[in-house]
């Protein structure tokens, strides 16, 4: 159990999927599950492969580089822990490793990308939120890590300084 922003972050000993992610983050590595059968990566911890149902997987270290696919700026926190952090950005990051994979052979035009949610924070201080004016779809980001305790770390995101993937877009508000 680690305390972070007034919350008790508890990764259960039997929650192997989350445990691997949070332990790797403490080692400042971003890992995702890679299916041992079809080879697809998945952006959220889970027991089975949503592409082929396989139960076999390995941890795969990834570059931690990606592009902001969507975002929001929370101006009213619902958790007391986040009240002193508003307005804080939450970003949906599309990782470089696996993008726009057709779902079940292109069924209904669906594609799946490797996307993770997190906060956009300062590159030199992952406990400090990024300014909302700097958050935009298309901006390039890199993974950063918050050390929660000796065992667990939290994945966060910071602007990488690379040129944007396309003309950045943020809502005019």
């Amino acid at each position, binding site marked *: 159990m680690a305390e972070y922003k007034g919350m008790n*972050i*508890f990764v259960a000993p039997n929650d192997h999927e989350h445990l691997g992610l949070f332990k790797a983050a403490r080692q400042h590595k971003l890992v995702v599950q890679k299916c041992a059968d079809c080879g697809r990566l998945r*952006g959220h911890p889970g027991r089975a492969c949503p592409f082929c149902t396989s139960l076999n997987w390995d941890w795969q270290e990834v570059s931690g580089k990606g592009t902001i696919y969507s975002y929001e700026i929370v101006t009213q926190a*619902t958790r007391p822990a986040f009240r002193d952090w508003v*307005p804080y950005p939450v970003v949906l990051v599309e990782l470089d490793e696996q993008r726009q994979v057709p*779902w079940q052979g292109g069924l209904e035009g669906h*594609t799946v990308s490797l996307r993770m949610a997190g906060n956009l924070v300062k590159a030199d201080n992952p406990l400090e939120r990024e300014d909302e004016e700097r958050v935009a779809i298309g901006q390039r980001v890199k993974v950063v890590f918050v050390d929660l305790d000796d065992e667990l770390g939290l994945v966060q995101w910071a602007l990488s300084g690379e040129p944007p993937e396309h003309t950045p877009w943020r809502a005019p508000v």
Partner: protein
Amino acid sequence: MGNLRDKYCIVGVGETEYSRNSGRTQRALGVEALRAAMGDAGLGPQDVNGMLSYHSNDSVPSPVLAHDLGLRLDFYMDCSGGGSSIEALIGIAMGVIEAGMCHTVAIYRAMNGYTFARIGGTPTAGGRAPVTDVSGPALESVSYGLTSAAQSFHFSFTRHMYEYGTTNEQLAQVKVVHSRHASNNPKALYKQRVTVADVLNSRWIVKPGCHLLDCCVETDNATCIIVTTAERARHLRKRPIYIMSVAGRVSNPFTSHHYQMDPITRHAGYYASRILWRNAGVEPEDIQLTGAYDAFTFTPILMLEGFGFCQPGEGGAYVSSGIIELGGKRPNNTSGGQLCEGYTHGMNLVIENVRQLRHQADDSCPNWEKGEHTYDYSEGGCRQVKDVELAANLGWAMPATTSALVLRR
């Protein structure tokens, strides 16, 4: 599978007042709503032998209400669920009656949604304590301050604005129209008409899609809807409202992590609409009244697109065109909906459509109970849709999950 079109009816609806201080328990509220719906239908305790409810660990179980009103049940089930539950539960009620398990089902939702368990997650003084432990799937969201509904849905909202140019002015139109409807609904919690400027000037909750007035109003209330067979319905107090079709709950693939899948703005209505319109034997163009779930001003936009009332990306223009307003081609949420009348997890939107189809919208027309209306939609006046025969309810739980219902007079 057999199509049950027009074989089942909604025969009774009832609710408590909509308030932010009910001053009584969810049990008391639930009993009052159930009793009101039974009275509406003209049913006594011996006439209702099935119950369904849904809750978020904030309600009261069916057997308690059944006890309080002297019902003996042949079937009951209390389900976990929020928005888009009611349409699906109406379908389940039809199924259990069809299976011979019971003959009349009362479905209710009882919630002190302001004073006990606030849907936005804000802790309440006398209510449920805030959870501070974060584990399991919440590690991927709550750790980042991604908890409330407005926060959880926003990746889809923001992308809709980016991809289609949907504007805050268009979103505000939904609130403006629903507030006009609410001004003609004496029951509504917020009856005051608002302007686009009022919405845009209200404080931000989540940028870029939710000002305060883009959000529904957390409310204390209970609501109840009674379903039985068309055969039984013909002998009851009120004109039966026929259930033409039900879909739900229906989900997109990758439901719990929908934001990893494209099109991210595609609501589950994309799939549900196929079931809904096929079984109803009608098309969106035939529908004269919609009840698109307004948790936020954005949610009707995504659903009206998903269910085929307009093309993907055209939802903002659709809600700004006058179509959704009383007097327009296809009004939406004529009670003022959850943005104004009160937040009920969708129940009041179905109740309103039932009253509309009876031609008994409880507005300020002196003889509304006789179906006599002025059709003057100015403030404080009528809210009955003239000659309405067909209505659809579109339920929302999240971008990737939905239920829906088609009703006819």
